[in-house]
């Protein structure tokens, strides 16, 4: 009788625990860092990672590990996560160190990653806490430090936290990853490169920012004992696990001019602990960023990331001696990715402006249109202006048509030839008139006779809205 009862209780507990673990998976938060950590876990199964890049969105938007690997013949991974506070660095690093043995850990520090967490930022740090083991003492210490006891259950249980999504979660495909908009963002090994660039309003606001000289500021209180403790903890970890630490600050437009003191303080403290510090916000002159290489006031876009990564590569090359991994199978397997990235984003010519501002339809004005040539595609960037943005957003498609010169019709795409058109075409929905539209236009046409731009309905085709704009002859001086 007792044995039967015992077995029944055990079976019940087993069912309950299994059900709970299943639901924990079903309701697991889907976010960029989950994707990043899944990719990280995949990579560490294949190879050891020599360079770990950590920090906030500034880090994952600025340093491209693929490019770093290519330049420095290393194997690196960018495990940056949105809003990551410096105080959580060692929590994440301790988890990382259980999986791989880095030679160099690069940690991004900025004005935003040092203050105490706000309520909103607490939510973002659940991403890191989810990645740490529920049985970790370090995790409990952080939870205890930043969360109220009544929040503990929500921190530790994702079912409890996300249960309100019961109608939308996938109960079958529980390992599904968050869908990434590959058209707007390039994502690889934790790096996220935006293909958009800063909008016209911010361009206006920050037009003189890149030539601004950083000043001392009022941020003296930001750097405190808690940060010194993290440095101590990092020092202990670096000695125990035998890796070097490099702190960096990535370029941003908004706050760099206010943070002179802060940067000096970080530099002093880093030096006192024997760590190096590279402040890329103070090296604008050397790197020569343009406003078009930012996605917003805080983050570089994909092309800005290329510049920042190349600069960091040089710095690493000069200051650290990392093992050459170019002969390893993992590094060799990345060759195709190097090539794709080069052809897609690096080796293209510089952007050229092809037309002045002209009105397209209603009050929709095409303020600026730039074009770059890559291996087999043209990359257009278009800035619009419309005071009716709220009513027009997502209502229309912007169409680009590329006509070849006479005699070069064979360069038209197969699809164009099939339907008997005389131009290659591509269209995008204009979702936000305040953002720069980036249109990747795959085409083999090299001898361009004219470009044509127009607006159509985002729905069943009802003809051209307003007037099409054509650029040809003298106005079309492209050196692609």
């Amino acid at each position, binding site marked *: 009788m007792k044995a039967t009862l015992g077995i029944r209780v055990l079976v019940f507990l087993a069912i309950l625990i299994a059900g709970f673990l299943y639901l924990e998976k079903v309701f697991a938060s889907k976010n960029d860092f989950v994707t990043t950590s899944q990719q990280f876990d995949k990579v560490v199964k294949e190879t050891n990672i020599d360079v770990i890049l950590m920090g906030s969105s500034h880090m994952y938007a600025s340093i491209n590990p693929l490019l770093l690997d290519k330049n420095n013949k290393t194997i690196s991974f960018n495990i940056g996560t949105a809003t990551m506070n410096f105080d959580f660095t060692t929590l994440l690093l301790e988890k990382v160190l259980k999986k791989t043995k880095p030679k160099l850990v690069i940690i991004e520090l900025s004005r935003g990653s040092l203050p105490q967490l706000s309520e909103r930022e607490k939510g973002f740090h659940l991403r890191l806490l989810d990645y740490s083991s529920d049985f970790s003492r370090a995790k409990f210490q952080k939870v205890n430090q930043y969360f109220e006891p009544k929040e503990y259950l929500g921190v530790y249980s994702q079912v409890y936290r996300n*249960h309100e999504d*019961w*109608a939308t979660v996938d109960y079958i495909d529980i390992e599904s990853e968050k869908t990434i908009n590959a058209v707007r963002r390039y994502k690889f090994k934790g790096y996220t490169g935006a293909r958009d660039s800063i909008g016209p309003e911010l361009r206006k606001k920050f037009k003189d920012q890149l030539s601004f000289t950083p000043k001392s500021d009022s941020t003296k209180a930001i750097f405190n004992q808690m940060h010194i403790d993290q440095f101590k903890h990092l020092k202990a970890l670096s000695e125990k696990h035998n890796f070097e630490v490099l702190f960096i600050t990535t370029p941003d437009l908004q706050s760099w001019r206010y943070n002179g003191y802060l940067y000096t303080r970080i530099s002093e403290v880093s030096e006192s602990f024997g760590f190096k510090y590279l402040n890329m916000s103070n090296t604008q002159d050397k790197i020569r960023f343009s406003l078009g290489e930012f996605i917003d006031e805080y983050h570089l876009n994909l092309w800005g990331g290329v510049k920042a990564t190349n600069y960091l590569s040089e710095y690493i090359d000069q200051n650290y001696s990392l093992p050459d991994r170019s002969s390893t199978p993992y590094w060799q397997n990345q060759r195709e990715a190097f090539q794709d990235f080069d052809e897609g984003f690096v080796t293209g010519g510089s952007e050229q402006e092809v037309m002045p501002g002209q009105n397209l339809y209603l009050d929709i004005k095409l303020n600026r249109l730039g074009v770059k040539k890559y291996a087999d595609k043209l990359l257009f960037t278009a800035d619009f202006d419309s005071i009716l943005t709220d009513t027009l957003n997502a209502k229309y498609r912007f169409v680009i048509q590329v006509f070849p010169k006479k005699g070069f019709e064979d360069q038209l795409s197969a699809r164009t030839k099939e339907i008997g058109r005389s131009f290659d075409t591509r269209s995008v929905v204009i979702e936000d008139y305040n953002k720069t539209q980036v249109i990747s236009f795959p085409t083999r046409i090299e001898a361009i006779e004219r470009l044509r731009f127009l607006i159509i309905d985002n729905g069943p085709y009802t003809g051209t809205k307003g007037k099409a704009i054509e650029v040809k002859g003298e106005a079309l001086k492209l050196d692609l």
Partner: protein
Amino acid sequence: MLFNSIDFAIFFPLFLAVYAIVHKKLTLRNAFLLASSYVFYGWWDWRFLFLIIFSSIVDFTMGRQIFKAKTKALKKSFLLISLLVNLGLLAYFKYANFFIDSFINSFNFLGGQLDSFALNIILPVGISFYTFQTLSYSIDIYRQKIEPTKNVLSFFTFVAFFPQLVAGPIERAAHLLPQFDKIYHFDYKSFRSGALLALFGLFKKMVIADRLAILVNQVYNNPADYGGGDYAIATVFFAFQIYCDFSGYSDIAIGISRMIGFDLMKNFKSPYFSKSITEFWRRWHISLSTWFRDYVYIPLGGSRVSPPRMYFNLFAVFVISGLWHGAAVTFIIWGAIHGLVIVIEKRLSKKATPALLKESKAVYHIVGFAKWGITFVIVCLAWIFFRANTMADSFLITKGVLTDFSIQESLATLGLALTEFKLSIVLIVLLVIFDWIHRRYGALKVLKKTPWVLRSVLYAVIILSIFVFGIYGNDNVSEFIYFQF
């Protein structure tokens, strides 16, 4: 402390762990129960513990004095002291502002001029429940139904017993008090059935009641924004909300009491299957309706008086019951509606049953169904007054329900997303099916016939459903409606 709070989720396992050690030593067990009950109550506001302690002292002392008194007059005097103290406390904490407000309104209505004001009084949680419980002790001693206990610890624990302290069931001393003088022997079956009942209560509260409350609160707190159809949906939802909320609390109270070896009286018996309001009150909040029967209706003469007087007694009891629920005219009207319908039912019940009803089973069922429908509609109409924030809102909603059948274009404006609304309907249907099965076959009997593996799966599913579909409210916890009474 609320049963559906994290605090209780930590408190109760710790309580059980210690209880497992102390349960065989009577004094130690009762002392631990009393201390735990005071912690449970003091968690909300420790200052009001003094009120419970004071009430316990008065009733323990008066109980002894009533018993010892040689003359009827003396007994009556001690009983009067008990009544005055208990009802005085209740009147002060619960009704002072209501009486002041009513007096000022009446005075102004008659031409006087008084500015309205309110005393800054906090209503102690559960005061209506434990006051009625201790009152019944003194009255039963006076009526020589029970003898007073000599054990002060048992009595104090009886008054403060945490599972039923703040929202009942309102126990009688004759039933609960002797249980504090018996040693508890662990019984797995009782423990399991208690846990299951508590779990089901938690499900009703967190998954059904609190989900329905979202829509109900949205409509009842903004009645001017909605039409008659919306009021009807919100009122039916409220009918199930308050049922799941209150019977859920009772289930948890009875369940956890059973887990630790105490038997509490049943408080609900599928009330919405009633075919008359009279039957409804035999199935709804049974501990309160029997309390009013025993301590108000019968002393007024019960049914041993002339029919008009009996009808008056019935009506009066329900008006008082309305006032017990809350110090507002809306509650009095709610009680009055029930009283009035019960009087009408009593009057009609004297007429002979038509022969057709006795002969034809089909007619019997059709009439039964109609009676059930009418009863449910009356109960729902009365709930409008119970739930509405003001009298004006009550009339607006009642008028809307009866005359206007318009409904919002989008259900989302009622406060619940469409999926949540659909789930709410499914849950109501499941609840009705469950109540029907329970009423007809007994849920525990059905469960006993189910293979144990399937039962284990079912229990696990209920627990996990609470996690997934539970509504956690502000600060991750939402109060039970009956706490305010």
